[in-house]
């Protein structure tokens, strides 16, 4: 942004501030507050009209009022039906006068009541606010405003939109404003040429909303020239959308794969490396998710400002908690059962029942709320209709980081060396001075700990309930076995190929049939390669 433009924004801001100062608007204030009072109505129809009236005042104080209404912060007091903007503070609401912007006291939950809106009004409000914030100094707000104006499609916005466009410097915002302009022109202009031009302009934007608009125009007009032009543009937009949809599908597949990978990777250690058929693996994931919940509770109560960091604390916490539980399980139960892998199935199944019930006893059977930090909420929405949600992106990256870390531990550390030594030849490892008991315990702890941090990640996309683990255990075993037991690389490739296969099947076969096909696929695949994707070959197999 140039210095000049910065200056011009500052100037505008100054004007706005000056304009909103109540002193200069005393005469105006009464009328405005009267109109604001009309917002207090039970009838949604009347409320809609009242909103229009508030907008029509052109008063800058209207923006905070309408925003409050949109966010559910506009209340009326039961005693005198006065309308207030409120802010929740503990158990009471702080009341602000909408016309003066001054705080004038507080009210309890019983004394004040929210002015409710519905989706139609919400759309109306957003459009109106869009028009009013098109010239906001904040580029992000202007971008949002431009999108809201596009959606509202209100011809009354045309004027202000054009004005805002002249002033706009930011490329992205300008593009969005142009899109909104073209949309309004296409829908409401009388002149055919303008409409045809608008179709062409919209053709540059390949997003589903444009497609929706074009569809609407095609259905709504009788003008053949317009229909032809819109249809042509639409097919362009749609074909481009279709090819982006494949990218989207791939992303979804990779994302599902990363979830499977996270769920399975701990099992790849306890089951794949140690040979323990660990039916309580899912419960380790669940414990990780509950640890996240606990950590977030602490943050909510003591450091609400740092909530975004809660997951970073939850990761080591979950690793520690599940790792310790893992050690306890290994020392208490599993070590007595080495060499009897099927009996570990029995014992760990019992254990999983007990762990679920413990959680149920302590936290209750209902879902616990685990929040998404702001950097994991929302999505990258490209202008091509492709939506990449942040939580999925983070989970993909996280799963890869986990597997990389594991690879490093297994190959580059002393512990990794000992771990491999013990699992390959226990007696030999013992005779070389490795305390195999401890290596077992730590290996199991590592697997459990990894399951725990997987729980942190899964808490971001799934229920946090005592049943969390159960829903992943079967998939985890499928992934490990499909990839080849004892092979981390196999687990990685297995998880992603199952995820992608599932997601590419889903649009054609539906979610249920898609999953069935994947399962049948696994069964057939195992016929072809009875030891999974990355099986060891040669003599070692028989051992």
């Amino acid at each position, binding site marked *: 942004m140039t210095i000049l433009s910065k200056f011009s924004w500052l100037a505008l801001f100054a004007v706005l501030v000056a304009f909103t100062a109540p002193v200069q608007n005393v005469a105006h204030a009464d009328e405005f507050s009267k109109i604001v009072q009309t917002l207090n109505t039970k009838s949604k129809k009347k409320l809609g009209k009242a909103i229009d009236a508030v907008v029509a005042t052109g008063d800058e104080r209207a923006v905070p009022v309408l925003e409050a209404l949109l966010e559910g912060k506009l209340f009326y007091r039961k005693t005198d039906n006065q309308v207030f903007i409120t802010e929740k503070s503990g158990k009471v609401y702080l009341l602000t006068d909408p016309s003066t912007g001054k705080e004038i006291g507080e009210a309890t939950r019983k004394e004040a009541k929210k002015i409710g809106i519905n989706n139609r009004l919400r759309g109306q409000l957003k459009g109106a606010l869009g028009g009013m914030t098109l010239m906001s100094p904040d580029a992000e707000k202007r971008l949002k405003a431009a999108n809201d104006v596009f959606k509202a499609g209100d011809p009354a916005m045309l004027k202000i939109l054009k004005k805002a466009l002249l002033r706009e410097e930011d490329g992205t915002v300008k593009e969005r404003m142009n899109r909104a302009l073209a949309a309004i022109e296409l829908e409401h202009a009388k002149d055919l040429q303008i409409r045809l031009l608008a179709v062409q302009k919209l053709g540059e934007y390949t997003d589903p909303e444009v497609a929706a608009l074009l569809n609407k125009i095609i259905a709504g007009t009788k003008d053949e020239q317009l229909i032809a032009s819109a249809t042509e543009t639409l097919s362009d937009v749609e074909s481009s959308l279709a090819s982006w949809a494949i990218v989207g599908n791939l992303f979804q597949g990779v994302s599902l794969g990363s979830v499977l990978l996270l769920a399975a990777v701990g099992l790849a250690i306890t*089951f794949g490396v140690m040979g323990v*058929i660990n*039916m309580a693996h899912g419960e380790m994931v669940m414990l990780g998710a509950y640890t996240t919940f606990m950590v977030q509770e602490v943050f909510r109560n003591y450091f609400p400002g740092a909530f975004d960091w809660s997951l970073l604390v939850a990761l080591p916490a979950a690793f520690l908690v599940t790792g310790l539980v893992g050690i306890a399980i290994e020392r208490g*139960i599993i070590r*007595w*059962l080495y060499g*009897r*892998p*099927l*009996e*570990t*199935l*029995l*014992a760990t*199944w*019992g*254990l*999983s*029942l*007990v762990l*679920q*019930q413990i959680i149920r*006893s302590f936290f209750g059977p209902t879902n616990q709320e685990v929040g998404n930090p702001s950097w994991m909420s929302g999505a990258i929405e490209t202008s091509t209709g492709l939506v990449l949600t942040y939580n999925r992106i983070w989970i993909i990256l996280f799963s890869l980081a986990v597997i990389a870390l594991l690879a490093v531990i297994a190959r580059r550390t002393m512990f990794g060396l000992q771990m491999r030594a013990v699992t390959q030849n226990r007696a030999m490892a013992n005779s070389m001075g490795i305390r195999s008991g401890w290596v077992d315990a730590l290996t199991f702890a590592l697997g459990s700990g990894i399951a725990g941090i997987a729980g942190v990640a899964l808490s971001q996309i799934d229920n946090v309930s005592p049943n969390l683990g*159960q829903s992943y255990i*079967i998939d985890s*075993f*499928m992934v490990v*076995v499909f990839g080849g*037991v004892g092979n981390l690389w196999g687990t990685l490739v297995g998880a992603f190929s199952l995820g992608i296969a599932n997601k590419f099947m889903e649009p054609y076969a539906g979610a*249920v*049939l898609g*999953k*069935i096909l994947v*399962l*049948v696929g*696994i*069964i*057939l695949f*195992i*016929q*072809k390669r*009875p*030891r*999974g994707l990355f099986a060891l070959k040669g003599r070692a197999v*028989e051992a």
Partner: protein
Amino acid sequence: MIRQPFILRILQDRLASFILGLLLLSAFLVPALNLYVSPESALHVPSYVVTLLGKYLTYALLALSVDLVWGYCGILSLGHGAFFALGGYAMGMHMMRQIGDRGVYGDPVLPDFMVFLDWKELPWYWYGFDNFGFALLMVLLVPGLLAFIFGWFAFRSRVTGVYLSIITQAMTYALLLAFFRNDMGFGGNNGLTDFKDILGFDLKSDGMRASLFFLSAMAVIFGYFVCKFIVESRLGRVIIAIRDAESRARFLGYRVEYYKLFVFVVSAVLAGIAGALYVPQVGIINPSEFAPANSIEIVIWVALGGRGTLIGPIIGALVVNYAKTYFTGALPEIWLYMLGGLFILTTLFLPKGITGTESIAQSFENYRLKLARWLRPHDFPDLNKEPAE
């Protein structure tokens, strides 16, 4: 070494003969006490108990079938619930057709759930199930056929160990999802229910209950003898050989896959029979029977009772299910601790299951010797010793 006659060999197994005797006795006694003793009497067995025991017995047969493949042939099937459920569905379909126009919509052919999903005609795979004989055939054939196809592929490809276990899980899981689908025409999640009668006998009558109990008890005894016959034959020794050293058996010229296939199919058929007896007694069959967790539970009954013995799984199924009934009623909030704890403690302290434990077996032995002396004080042969050649 001379092999003793079959029946003598069974008597040789004290625990087994005790349990089987008990089973045979109750097969007659329980229905009699239910039907012919007045409800006021302390000896009366209420219908509730009759069906409950009947249900346990079908589970016992199911456990027995798992033990045949797992305990003797080393094939850990984590999908046996599927065969059980298929047998159950076959029986359920028959009873569904038997409802006829007594359903809520009064359609003479279509089951209620089809009417209400607006289906116009019966899907082809429902044909024939109105015939009891055909349904019985399907009870045997459908699980058997699935086991045959699945086993044919899996054993020929030499899928073994956990790989096999996991694909059996995948099989039952896939079937679970498939049967959940309403489009499949098996009643979706609700499954089949609202049964009225079999062969004209009202399912709710005490006589029918007692008969079903009797049949279940007989089925367990029958299943026991079938399994006993198999494992005592040379084929039984071959499958144990396969369990212990598969490649040795192969290099001796045994086609391991055929042997595995044989016991797998037999076992699936037994499981199917169990399912068919189960459904009329509980009154509902739905896809949750396919749930992978159910199949794992069956394995646990076997492990708890003692695998590789034929009587162990029967005891295991009865004990675990009785415990479940008791705990879910008496301690509804904490019964999972009890059950989970039971599984953990048994594995740690009774590694061979209940029947494998010396002291219990020993106490049964003492009990039997006392009984024997009392019955025939003079010439009761000590079957433990080899007869002199």
